[in-house]
């Protein structure tokens, strides 16, 4: 039994300390996925909290049929999707959140820097949810297409179809950006 399986089992038995270890184990991955989907640190932090609570509420119903990380990713995706769909992502940063940041935080600079480093993914973020989620899960999180299908509750063939459509749209966006694909690859690899 792997360390993760052992942790999950202890959590299912109600051991609070095990939850602490489990959260620590999955935190980086949960936060990274939440940030990729929500594109906002405040919302991603909220999502992490919601994910932990959802794990606590539903761990006993985890049957082991799917891999734990697939189950966890499904929770993260659903929570992030709810946040996006409710259109209640914070329109302005709360004063308290900003106060909690280190001094000298420059929002504009932060966003500009992030966009420069992730030019392709900036285009991916312009796709609609239906096509963006499979791209994120498959290419960003390196999840196989059949698992992506399980997470999104669609057929595997639909995953391929949506990835294919996303590919077309990204090509058009790249062309519209004014640079050819070769130049974009050079920028990425530099």
């Amino acid at each position, binding site marked *: 039994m792997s360390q993760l399986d052992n942790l999950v089992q202890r959590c299912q038995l109600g051991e609070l300390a095990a939850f602490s270890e489990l959260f620590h184990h999955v935190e980086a991955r949960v*936060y*990274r996925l939440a940030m990729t989907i929500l594109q906002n640190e405040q919302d991603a932090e909220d999502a992490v909290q919601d994910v932990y609570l959802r794990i606590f509420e539903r761990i006993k119903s985890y049957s082991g049929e799917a891999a734990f990380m697939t189950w966890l990713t499904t929770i993260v995706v659903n929570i992030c999707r709810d946040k996006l769909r409710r259109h209640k992502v914070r329109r302005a940063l709360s004063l308290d959140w900003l106060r909690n940041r280190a001094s000298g935080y420059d929002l504009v600079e932060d966003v500009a820097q992030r966009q420069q480093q992730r030019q392709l993914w900036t285009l991916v973020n312009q796709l609609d949810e239906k096509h963006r989620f499979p791209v994120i899960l498959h290419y960003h999180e390196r999840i196989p297409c059949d698992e992506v299908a399980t997470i999104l509750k669609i057929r595997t063939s639909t995953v391929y179809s949506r990835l294919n459509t996303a*590919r077309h749209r990204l090509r058009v966006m790249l062309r519209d950006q004014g640079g050819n694909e070769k130049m974009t690859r050079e920028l990425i690899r530099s």
Partner: protein
Amino acid sequence: MMNRSEQNASNHNIKCEQVDDQLLAYAKGALPSTEQRAIANHIANCDRCALALHELRSLESDLKLEASRYHPQLSPEASQRIQQQVYRRMRLSMVWQRLFQTVRAGAAVAGAGVMLIIAVFVGYQWLQFMANPVDENAIVAGSSVVETEIETGTETETETAVSIPTPVPTDVPVAQTQEVETQDFASLPILPPTNNISNIPIYWQDLESITPGDMPPAIAREVLDAALDDDASRLNKLLAAMSTHREPSIRLWQLFTRRCQGTVEAFDFSYRQLPTGDFPLTAVHLYYQGNYTGEIKFRRIGDDWFAVFSHPPLINECLQAQFVLPREQ
């Protein structure tokens, strides 16, 4: 007109458009073997589709490369804060579960009689909580409202239709002879500090204000902030003057948190304080998008204000503006 390679490719009964539709699945080897072979043969003889496949592979590679450089970090402070909040709710949930199991076990043993006693006890406590704990005169508050908005931050949105009746603001005693006109709050007379200890209930006499001197609207905002942070400890202190009614009140605020956390901010509300009469009581009405949603009543002791009764924002799809209530004046 097709070129020679496209001509050859089409001779294999598969067109470029079909290949394009299946290109990604083909690249991953996910098609049935006959289809894989047919597409492979087509690509071998079609420059256009071969280029498309090459571009697809490049795009996939670039997406993965860019993603591999992305390592957002949750700060240790944020991580700790999140875990603390989660553990608090986990412990509360476990307490309720154990209580429920105990009650269920008790009911199984003792039967319906015990359940009836418990139900009566809980119902009595609830009625106690819902009743106004402050001995008030039955005088309707003046209709004019002093505006004291704090960081509304709301956007103008169209109203939605209303179907559910909701509680109206509870009464706050105002001396009948006092006429209060709408005016700047700062110009209202400040009541002298209450030095007569015998007028103050015992459980208030040793209180220390967590926000000394702060006006009720500022405290109301702090209460919402604490509730939305699900910070029971802060809520406990801010609602200190509610004595025996504190626990149910805090539970109500935490229910509001569960529904609304992450969707509203304290500064999404506006806070309107009613005029204070001779008796040092006032109320702060909470408005969300122009609709009244709840109130907190305050009593002034000395220079400080203390929350004495509260009606948390009404919980309905987390304030989806489904109420017909007095609009902001």
